[in-house]
């Protein structure tokens, strides 16, 4: 039956392949949306690990996480070092890493922090940061590079770099009065860490010594750095601080007491909770897209059934000849059902191949845009379920033309 079916379908190749393509395209759409969403979520969730809370100025918790972890957006406010020092004294804290953000180097964000950043900040499933080359900075004139930065700019240990004020290269003024020397390059993590330049907080403070409210007042060239008192480089404010607690059980008490901190309006954000907030927003948009795609799939299936029904008139002679040679109406109806099965299977196989290609490029784009790299996969169990559902719906709807063929041929003379 299959060789007859394939030859018959081949004789109607143009309409048949158009319907197959439309079905394939709608499935590609559905799966791409689903995969990109899953990939983004996975990538985001794996971008930070081992951090129990992020302390920052009181603002939207999502904003704080997006800014401090993903380097997206702008800081709203800063938090004073005095407050940070106060919190450091709490005995439920295991470690604290302050960070200051705002500057960049050739489009890559600068993260000013302390050397213990590399000990405490983890990614993925609690994986520690490791050095591809060199070591962490120990002097205020030293810098560490994320792997993409080193790769793209062709830097290595010993390279010198200057920092631009602000996050956009072309708009910011260069801190051209001071250069940093690279002491280490981190291994690839597939997180925004790969796209960052790390400096010592004191070095960062030094850069801004001559600056008052976003404007340069004097150049470092005009002063003698060797006579600067040590506490002149102690930062007055930072953007945020990453916190590790001794026990996770104290997390909610901790965040409550931070919120009630009397001297400054600050808050403690739990990264996982803030991210799930993000997914509930993204998820809503995503559900809308998904619904639309299901509608498109339904339309494609209707188009397929319409095509099969429309072709029946032209196939009358073909069917009668089969019938005269002993084919039962059941055989003819089965042939119609198999035709929808063949269209469905070809569309599915094509969709898998296309989606794989799309996912591959989308993964690269996500990596470029957000610094996250979701794991690449062929096909998931969930997707097989979706495909089976579509195939089942296709076969189910082909029962209409199949029944038409069956009834017609049961009561038709051979002519």
């Amino acid at each position, binding site marked *: 039956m299959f060789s*007859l079916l394939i*030859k*018959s379908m*081949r*004789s109607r190749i143009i309409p048949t392949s158009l319907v197959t393509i439309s079905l394939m395209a709608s499935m590609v759409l559905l799966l791409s949306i689903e995969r990109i969403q899953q990939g983004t979520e996975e990538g985001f969730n794996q971008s930070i690990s081992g951090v129990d809370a992020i302390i920052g100025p009181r603002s939207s918790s999502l904003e704080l996480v997006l800014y401090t972890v993903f380097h997206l957006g702008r800081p709203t406010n800063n938090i004073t070092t005095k407050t940070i020092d106060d919190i450091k004294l709490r005995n439920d804290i295991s470690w604290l890493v302050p960070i200051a953000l705002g500057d960049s180097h050739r489009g890559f964000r600068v993260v000013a922090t302390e050397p213990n950043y590399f000990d405490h900040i983890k990614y993925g499933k609690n994986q520690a940061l490791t050095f591809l080359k060199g070591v962490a900075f120990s002097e205020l004139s030293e810098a560490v590079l994320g792997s993409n930065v080193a790769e793209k700019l062709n830097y290595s240990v010993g390279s010198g770099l200057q920092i631009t004020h602000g996050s956009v290269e072309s708009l910011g003024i260069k801190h051209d009065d001071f250069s940093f020397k690279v002491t280490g390059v981190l291994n690839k993590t597939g997180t925004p860490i790969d796209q960052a330049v790390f400096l010592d907080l004191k070095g960062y403070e030094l850069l801004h010594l001559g600056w008052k409210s976003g404007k340069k007042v004097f150049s470092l060239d005009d002063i003698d750095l060797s006579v600067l008192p040590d506490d002149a480089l102690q930062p007055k404010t930072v953007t945020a601080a990453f916190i590790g607690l001794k026990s996770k059980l104290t997390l909610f008490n901790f965040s409550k007491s931070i919120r009630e901190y009397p001297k400054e309006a600050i808050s403690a954000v739990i990264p996982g909770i803030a991210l799930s907030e993000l997914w509930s927003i993204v998820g809503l948009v995503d559900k809308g897209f998904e619904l639309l795609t299901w509608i498109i799939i339904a339309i494609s299936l209707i188009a397929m059934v319409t095509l099969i029904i429309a072709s029946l008139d032209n196939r009358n*002679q*073909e069917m*009668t*000849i*089969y*019938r*005269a*040679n*002993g*084919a*039962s*109406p*059941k*055989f003819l109806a089965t042939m119609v059902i198999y035709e929808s099965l063949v269209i469905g299977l070809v569309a599915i196989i094509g969709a898998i191949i296309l989606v794989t290609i799309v996912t591959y490029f989308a993964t690269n784009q996500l990596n470029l845009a957000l610094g996250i790299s979701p794991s690449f996969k062929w096909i998931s169990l969930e997707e097989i379920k979706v495909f089976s559902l579509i195939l089942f719906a296709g076969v189910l709807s082909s029962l209409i033309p199949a029944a038409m063929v069956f009834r017609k041929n*049961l*009561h*038709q*003379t*051979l*002519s």
Partner: protein
Amino acid sequence: MLKTLGLEYHYRDGKKIIFPEIEVGKGERLLIRGFSGCGKTTLLSLIAGALKLQNGDIKFDGNEYSKMSSLLLDKFRADHIGYIFQTLNLIPFLSVSENIALGIKFSKSRKSKVNDFNQEIVRLVSSLGLGKEVLKTPVNRLSVGQQQRVAVARALLGKPDLILADEPTSALDSGTTKKFLNEVMETFDSTRQAIIMVSHDTSIAPYFDSVIDFNSNNV
């Protein structure tokens, strides 16, 4: 071998046909003559078991159609009957030999009677006056006469007991008809199959053992 008993057929539009009694023995040739619309095609479809019986019965080698399911009748047709249409006998997207192979596609018993398929179709085709090159010609490039011969080859493949032919010569001119029937009947003689042919053409009567006129029974 085949006998009809009190066959009647009511059409949906209210027309009713009472068919003459037919009896055909093994290897016998019967011509049913009648004008278009007299129910000849309906009669052949009933004998083929493709159309459900309404009144009356058909007996074929001891099998009573009225007692067989439509699925069983389809199988019976595949095994015992070859069918030739008036025109458009061939499926355009199949090759000539694939078209001929349809004759045994649905019947195990007919398939088992063909030892060497390729050899058998060459034999059939050449005994019907066609050259071997026809097998390689696309179906839509065959003349009507060639197409009808291919249809005969399909009906004869695997030696079914009965051939039903529905005005197979109506699309041929009188000269071609004569040549066609000569070749077909010669092939039939050697295979000893029964044939029931319906036609409005009175000139072909000499090729048959018996002739039934079927014009006066319409109600």
